[in-house]
């Protein structure tokens, strides 16, 4: 089974620039999550999709962050404009729908490490 694919692996941008991350979840996983992991901290949920729809985006800084999931498969997360405090690893994860038992929790991608200078 192919894992969760993310790109790019690394990105360095200047503050106030924009950046986009891409995620391709495991085939058949209807639920997709974007997490932000700041160095030394646990992952923090930014947004959760169920198929095409947003289930939870309560912790997404909507003035600068946006995300979409077209056709219920791939997803992109965008930051515009970036701030220094956005430096973090952005993890994408996918899982079976919430109505189904999830014994394995999420499957995570390797993440994109963003450095804002």
């Amino acid at each position: 089974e192919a894992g969760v694919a993310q790109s790019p692996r690394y990105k360095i941008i200047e503050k106030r620039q924009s950046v986009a991350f891409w995620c391709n979840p495991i085939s058949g996983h209807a639920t997709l999550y974007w997490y932000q992991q700041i160095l030394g901290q646990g992952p923090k949920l930014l947004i959760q999709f169920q198929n095409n729809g947003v289930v939870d985006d309560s912790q997404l800084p909507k003035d600068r962050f946006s995300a979409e999931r077209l056709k219920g498969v791939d997803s992109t997360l965008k930051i515009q404009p970036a701030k220094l405090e956005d430096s973090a690893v952005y993890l994408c994860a996918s899982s079976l729908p919430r109505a189904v038992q999830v014994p394995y929790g999420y499957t995570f991608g390797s993440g994109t490490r963003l450095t804002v200078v």
Partner: protein
Amino acid sequence: EDQVTQSPEALRLQEGESSSLNCSYTVSGLRGLFWYRQDPGKGPEFLFTLYSAGEEKEKERLKATLTKKESFLHITAPKPEDSATYLCAVQASVQLTGNQFYFGTGTSLTVIP
């Protein structure tokens, strides 16, 4: 407020020196508690799921246990390759969001040869 706290933040062990990592939680309606391993530059990798107090799971040198308020990850005779950050996450019974996970900040384990 739902919370997950892991301790210690960092742990250094000699190879073969057994120890335990702690994850305490205050979550309404626990659906599951998960342990993940995270190597530098990689996403978290699933280890165990525990659903109810008294449950135990084992995998090689790792054993996870669960009580009503905390979980322990016991590491028996660790090897250098066990060095990683171990993350605990709890899945709350959130009606609207379903699979909402709350992560702890992790324990960074270093096993010295």
